[in-house]
């Protein structure tokens, strides 16, 4: 078990009266690259070659969601492909690309029509669709399991073929915040905290293996916008405020 380090950080949210919130982490991540999404980003994944899969939620008016655009960008930012989904759907939070298919998580709120869809990446044809619970912030795929991070601090695993829940684990280390972005590694699953500027690597029981602090400090604004996570080799790729940033894990 690595020795925990306390990292003090002060951000725009800090005032002269309030002390700097402390971030408890094993180490601090270093930003190595950043790009902006072209439009409002609602999901991110990587292609394993420093390229990105991004989901943009287009809207012509407030809370009026138009087409969802899934774009594949190469390392230089050139668009390799774009899939436009124009049928009306609730807001998206989270995508995961696995092989020739893309998983998309629709609907976060209690009033939304929530479901997880699997689509053919080339044609957009629906390959599978499962109803899901409220509060799913981001998704990842590991073998034949879709992992989902729940706002209310749980990791939920469902069978990718049947949609049947396999297990769920509490993320007790995030008790002071909510869960957001999620990414899988051979060692475990990274889950981002909504307000604490850190991510925890957990096993399938939800137990924390290690904790990493983000350098941007504690800031409550991001809890409203949504944060999504992906893995590019050993580098964490975080979407936050329409910025996609690569963070080196030491």
């Amino acid at each position: 078990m690595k020795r925990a380090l306390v990292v003090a950080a002060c951000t725009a949210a800090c005032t002269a009266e309030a002390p700097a919130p402390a971030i408890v982490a094993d180490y601090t991540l270093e930003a190595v690259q950043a790009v902006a999404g072209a439009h409002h980003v609602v999901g991110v994944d990587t292609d394993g070659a420093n390229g990105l899969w991004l989901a943009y939620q287009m809207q012509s008016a407030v809370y009026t969601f138009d087409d969802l655009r899934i774009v594949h960008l190469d390392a230089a930012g050139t668009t390799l492909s774009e899939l436009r989904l124009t049928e009306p759907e609730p807001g998206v939070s989270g995508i995961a690309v696995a092989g020739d298919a893309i998983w998309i998580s629709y609907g976060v709120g209690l009033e939304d029509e929530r479901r997880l869809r699997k689509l053919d990446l080339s044609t957009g044809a629906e390959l599978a669709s499962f109803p899901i619970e409220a509060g799913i912030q981001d998704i990842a795929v590991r073998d034949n399991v879709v992992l989902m991070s729940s706002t209310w601090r749980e990791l939920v695993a469902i069978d990718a073929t049947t949609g049947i829940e396999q297990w769920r684990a509490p993320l007790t280390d995030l008790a002071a915040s909510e869960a957001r972005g999620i990414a899988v590694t051979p060692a475990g699953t990274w889950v981002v905290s909504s307000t604490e500027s850190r991510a925890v690597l957990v096993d399938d029981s939800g137990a924390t293996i290690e904790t990493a602090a983000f350098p941007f400090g504690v800031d409550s604004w991001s809890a409203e916008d949504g944060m999504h996570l992906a893995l590019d080799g050993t580098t964490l790729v975080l979407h936050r405020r329409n910025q996609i940033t690569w963070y080196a894990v030491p």
Partner: protein
Amino acid sequence: MSQIHAGAPDIPAKARLVRAVQKTRSMRALLVLLVAAGCADDMTLDLVRTQVAPDSNLVGVDSDGAGGLWLAYRTPTSDYYAISEVRVSHLDPGGAELARFTYRDEYTQVNGLAFTGDAIWLNYNNGFSDDNRIRKLDPATGAELASFATEVGIVDLASRGDELLLSYMWNEIIAIDRTRGGERWRSKITAFPEGGTQRGIAADDAGIWLLEQERDEITLVDDAGAVVATASLPGYSDSYDPFTDYLSWDGETLIVAHHDKLLWFEVAR
């Protein structure tokens, strides 16, 4: 002329400094002298020109680098979320319009414009439910070349080298690269009151110029957000409607766009 804040050196030294400054045309050299003499806040602004904008509902200004201006206008709508007409206009030094591009495809408020020679950067930004982004436009055709989605709160923008400098209303400067929009750094401006008061932004070799909504002043800061100098803005007496809005630097003067009026200020003694 309006003079600002105290802290002057002894009179003989100051007199020598005045003579040196009077011979100096470069603003950067001026500020170097002021900083070296320990009176970096001894800066004044002279209002040298005013003009009513040729169109109404001015929402952005920048110099074209040749004595002319790029201006952005947005027609208000009765429905907050209705698609609005946005017009981008290029004026020559005499005020003749050289180009005009019209857009009717967004409902989000426009807040600021920057021109970099190869592109016009138009900032759309308002609330959390808006389509907040910077549009990169072709200055020859008006066509959209790229788009960078942003966070809420960007109220003006400027360019410097290969960066765009964004004025974040909750008192920060955010620098992004012009190629892919990635954030490079951000700095907090602690000199401004909390609550979201920072407004127009411009940049040059001397630093970054900022407007703030509660004072008729311009503040010059460095990239770390430290104040280098401040100066009051003369020639505007409406105390209930402080200087806010948009700022530009044309190589010789600061240009403030406030409502539908343009004001040019020289930095002088």
